[in-house]
């Protein structure tokens, strides 16, 4: 498959949901940062897997079992290639980003952190990349320090000097892209910094891996997580990348079947990577579906996805600027943000905005977007957020803008 840019209006036809009509309105799906819509390719792959090749993996010697295992392990190779990992041993399937982060916190964190150590996190993290580190801090006695954001949602990197002075930094957790403000964070700079401190970096790729080319080596990532459902796969499958030496040395997370080599009543030896971290029957068809969603993305070209999202974001920012009373939050420069645009409309609560837009078939999210510290920092009760993907077309933005004018009329 070659990566020639196909217009979003054409790609859109690959996503059956866009045939849906809501109360006579065409669907404007501007909530892909929450969860992405599904391509026919992904849906057909899952359907065909279930209808022709389904069995449990790694256990059955019969034909179906072999096919199912090949499909499941084939998805691992697809994920490896997507993020430029050296080996499929470095790819662990998880339920989603949240579970992958918990795996690292529980397994790597408990084995490597002690009182006196420092975990560094940021103020703009999704709760999923914040709470596990707070819990780890409580469990191990390691301190937790935060890098704060400025008024535009940019990390204040000068705070790192002060944190470095206190020493003992063992781990830094950061999102490559913020889900609530759209900020793109300088992961490479942070990786170099934490490596100088003798620590590791955990990169939350939930909002970046689906939207741009990823290379774990170029990023300097020790761990990287993402969710299949945000890149057009089904919910229930995600992945953890971990550098092999780190994974090799980590104790298991969940224990039970599949993750063992031999079990005797006197003791157990564990399976090799990556299966050591995949206890129990995995989300087999979901992983296969995630692989198909990635194939589709790679076919479109992740650089094309990124370029399209930048263009549609610029268009959306321009059109939002025409609506009186709109304040857009997050970085002002297009190049500093991904396809996520949070905004407020003067005098109208985001819930009311989202409800009225929703009745026009325009799906946007309203709330704190699982980032309460960000909301608190910016003094916002909540925001309305529009987010884009490879299938987002200008018509959808236009319908959102029409909807916003309607909101203003209702609340005038």
């Amino acid at each position: 498959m070659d990566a020639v840019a196909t217009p979003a209006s054409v790609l859109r036809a690959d996503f059956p949901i866009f045939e849906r009509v809501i109360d006579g309105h065409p669907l404007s799906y501007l909530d892909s940062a929450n969860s992405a819509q599904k391509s026919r390719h992904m849906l057909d792959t899952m359907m065909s897997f279930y209808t022709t090749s389904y069995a449990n993996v790694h256990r059955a010697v019969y034909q179906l079992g072999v096919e199912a295992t090949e499909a499941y392990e084939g998805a691992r190779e697809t994920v490896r290639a997507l993020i430029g990992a050296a080996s499929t041993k470095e790819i662990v399937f998880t339920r989603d980003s949240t579970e992958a982060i918990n795996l690292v916190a529980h397994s790597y964190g408990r084995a490597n952190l002690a009182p006196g150590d420092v975990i560094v996190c940021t103020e703009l993290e999704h709760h999923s990349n914040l709470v596990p580190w707070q819990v780890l801090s409580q469990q191990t006695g390691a301190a937790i320090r935060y890098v704060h954001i400025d008024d535009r949602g940019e990390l204040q990197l000068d705070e790192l000097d002060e944190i470095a002075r206190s020493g003992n930094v063992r781990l830094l957790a950061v999102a490559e892209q913020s889900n609530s403000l759209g900020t793109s964070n300088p992961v490479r700079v942070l990786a170099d910094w934490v490596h100088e401190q003798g620590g590791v970096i955990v990169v939350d790729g939930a909002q970046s891996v689906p939207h741009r080319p990823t290379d774990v080596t170029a990023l300097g990532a020790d761990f990287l997580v993402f969710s299949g459902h945000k890149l057009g796969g089904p919910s229930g499958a995600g992945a953890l990348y971990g550098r092999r030496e780190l994974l090799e040395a980590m104790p298991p997370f969940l224990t039970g079947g599949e993750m063992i080599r031999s079990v005797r009543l006197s003791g157990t030896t564990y399976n090799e990577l990556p299966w050591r971290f995949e206890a129990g029957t995995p989300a087999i068809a979901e992983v296969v579906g995630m692989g198909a969603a990635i194939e589709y993305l790679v076919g479109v070209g992740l650089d094309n996805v990124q370029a399209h999202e930048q263009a549609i974001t610029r268009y959306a920012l321009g059109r939002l600027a025409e609506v009186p009373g709109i304040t857009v939050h997050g970085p002002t420069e297009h190049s500093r943000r991904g396809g996520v645009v949070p905004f407020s409309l003067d005098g109208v609560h985001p819930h009311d905005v989202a409800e009225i837009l929703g009745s026009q078939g325009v799906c946007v999210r309203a709330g704190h977007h699982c980032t309460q510290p960000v909301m608190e920092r910016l003094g916002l009760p909540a925001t309305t957020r529009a987010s884009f993907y490879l299938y987002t077309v200008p018509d959808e933005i236009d319908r959102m803008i029409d909807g916003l004018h309607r909101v203003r009329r209702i609340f005038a």
Partner: protein
Amino acid sequence: MDDLYREHILDHYKNPRNHGALTDADVSVEGTNPLCGDELHLDLNIIAGRIEEIRFHGRGCSISQAATSMMTELVEGKTVEEAAALTRADIEEEMGIPLSPVRLKCALLGLSTLRVALNRHAGVALPEGWAGMDGVDWR
């Protein structure tokens, strides 16, 4: 949709009744709906078992603000027992529209905060984290 933003709801939102604060309130309670970031501050003066004065302020969507405004009109002058008997259905009836599960939470913020206030005034020890109403998922 137009239903949800009917005239009387918008009227209560734009011109909330009993809006403000009481300086020497007998009981004051904060209610929050973390999902929406709504915050409600409720003050009551209860004299001889009767709600003589009630005021609210805070921030929230039109549904939570309008429903709270309507709730204050319903309970002002009522006895504590009468106010405590107020139900979800009374609020829905007052709103006059069907509410989706998500918006129901918005609409019930005022009532549940009132219940916390009445319990507190009566000196009833409340379970930690109880937001005034069972069966409502406050996430």
